[in-house]
């Protein structure tokens, strides 16, 4: 059984295709492992002892998948980490999940997350924090912390999450796995419980880059139910590159100096040297507006959230607190159902949109967003990819940043500029600093996922990191 769990998802799929592994055994092994999870990674684990019928020749070959709580799954609890949706069982399934299931990946489990994806540590989960498998006194990152911890601890072969300001890439970095945030529109948002609709994007969290490409390829595609989704312009291939010859990697000084922990910076520079050895040109670039991305993000995302979360009003689904009149029912339901960070962001967003403040806050943030996108457009004139550390620090102790919202928000410093411009980026494991995983981020132009995955694959081979905490990262 344990050998089954050691296979990467792509290896397991290949073994199923070759007939040497039975999908039923794979399901049983992972279900047993998921039920034994002690990191609080899961909000729900399938009760089916035998797996749903799977076509052996399907692309994902019966390799089960774990899915972040906020994806609607028909008849299965979908709570987005919130009390206000406790026990909610939606009447339909998100397109991204539907695509994975029809490509042959049965739903193994749902994973815990920060409430409505608002957070960088998964401590804002109404059902308790998720622990980091590398050190249980530390956070796994967030908001897709349950998905990251599940994959890093081997409790799931692979998982999906969502990234609004870094919620796939940052937990992937802090847990020593691979996280891909696709181009905005590449994956349908239909059935994802919305946080900030102009930024939210679903993507894979996996043990390696090959798994990332395989899972991503099964998720993409235009969806009539999401009018902002776009057709991916080419098939998603499995990466095979082992060098970076002819590629120019742009290093922005704004994201690779001040504010980054020394240990994280050291591993980043080591990987730049490896990239140079693989034939890449390392070039200095400027993203002059990137230092203002965090401020723009923490106006735009809460503003959109304040509108999106208006739907939680105790009328159609979820919690209701009874009251004598309608307005009191709304305000009490929301007071009881939302946690402190969600209330903070709703308040911030409502304030930024309110009469007299709109132009100075929300309006100005939208203009800064334009400038950030222009910075990237200019950068692509002189480099193929932008590279940086994924997170300014390694996994921190539980409770270390819960009393200071801005200290928590600073976790997103290197990841937020990218979704503001709608661009794709990957985080790959970049070795350890102080015994904890760090991430190497590669961002590219819209729809450059295939090229990003190839570059990430070459660098991954050179870095030679083993994502298993049990083996301490040594391959």
């Amino acid at each position, binding site marked *: 059984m344990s050998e089954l769990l050691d296979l990467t998802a792509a290896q397991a799929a290949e073994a199923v295709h070759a007939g040497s592994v039975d999908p039923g055994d794979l399901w049983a092994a992972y279900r047993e492992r998921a039920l034994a999870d002690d990191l609080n990674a899961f909000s729900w684990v399938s009760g089916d002892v035998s797996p749903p019928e799977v076509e052996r020749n399907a692309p994902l070959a019966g390799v089960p998948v774990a899915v972040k709580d906020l994806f609607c799954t028909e008849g299965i609890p979908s709570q987005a980490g919130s009390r206000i949706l406790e026990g909610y069982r939606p009447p339909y399934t998100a397109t991204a999940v539907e695509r994975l299931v029809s490509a042959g990946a049965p739903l193994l489990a749902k994973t815990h997350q920060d409430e409505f994806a608002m957070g960088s540590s998964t401590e804002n989960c109404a059902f308790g924090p998720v622990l980091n498998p590398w050190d249980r006194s530390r956070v796994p990152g967030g908001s897709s912390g349950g998905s990251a911890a599940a994959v890093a601890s081997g409790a799931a072969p692979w998982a999906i999450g969502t990234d609004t300001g870094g919620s796939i890439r940052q937990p992937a970095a802090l847990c020593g796995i691979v996280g891909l945030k696709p181009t905005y529109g590449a994956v349908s948002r239909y059935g994802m419980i919305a946080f900030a609709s102009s930024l939210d994007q679903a993507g894979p969290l996996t043990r390696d880059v090959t798994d990332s490409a395989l899972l991503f390829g099964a998720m993409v595609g235009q969806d009539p139910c999401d009018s902002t989704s776009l057709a991916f312009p080419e098939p998603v291939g499995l990466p095979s590159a082992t060098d970076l010859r002819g590629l120019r990697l742009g290093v922005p000084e704004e994201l690779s100096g001040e504010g980054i922990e020394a240990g994280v910076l050291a591993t980043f520079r080591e990987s730049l040297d490896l990239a140079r050895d693989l034939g890449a040109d390392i070039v200095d670039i400027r993203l002059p507006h990137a230092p203002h991305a965090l401020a723009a993000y923490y106006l735009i995302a809460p503003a959109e959230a304040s509108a999106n979360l208006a739907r939680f009003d105790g009328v159609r689904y979820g919690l209701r607190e009874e009251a004598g009149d309608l307005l009191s029912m709304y305000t009490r339901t929301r007071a009881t159902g939302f946690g402190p960070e969600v209330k903070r962001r709703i308040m911030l967003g409502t304030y930024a949109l309110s009469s007299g403040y709109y132009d100075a806050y929300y309006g100005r943030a*939208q203009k800064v967003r*334009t400038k950030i996108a222009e910075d990237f457009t200019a950068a692509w004139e002189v480099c193929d990819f932008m590279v940086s550390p994924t997170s300014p620090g390694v996994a921190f102790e539980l409770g270390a940043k819960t009393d200071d919202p801005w200290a928590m928000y600073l976790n997103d410093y290197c990841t937020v500029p990218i979704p503001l411009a709608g661009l794709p980026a990957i985080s790959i494991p970049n070795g350890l600093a102080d015994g904890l995983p760090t991430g190497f981020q590669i961002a590219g132009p819209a729809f450059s996922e295939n090229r990003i995955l190839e570059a990430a694959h070459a660098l991954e081979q050179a870095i030679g990191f083993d994502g298993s905490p049990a083996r301490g990262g040594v391959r």
Partner: protein
Amino acid sequence: MLSRDQVLHVARLARLELSEDELERMAGELSGVLGHIEKIGELGDLEGVPPTSHVVAVENALRADEPRPCLPREVALASAPDPVAGGFRVPSPGAAPV
């Protein structure tokens, strides 16, 4: 620093009831975050810069307006806290809020 009245006003707009403790904490925390956010003021004049509300340039996504099956009523009502007679029941709006 946001005043207590400002926080109460925003909470009312956001349909959130805040306890006395929450009110006080929220005023401090929001003021702290806004202090950092206000640094985007340092960028100077952005007159003439077009705002970006969305990165995908989709003008309109149209489909034929044809009737098709939707969720059955009882399924749509299944998660409602108080479904009555095929609809959602809510308390009376009562008097207009002041």
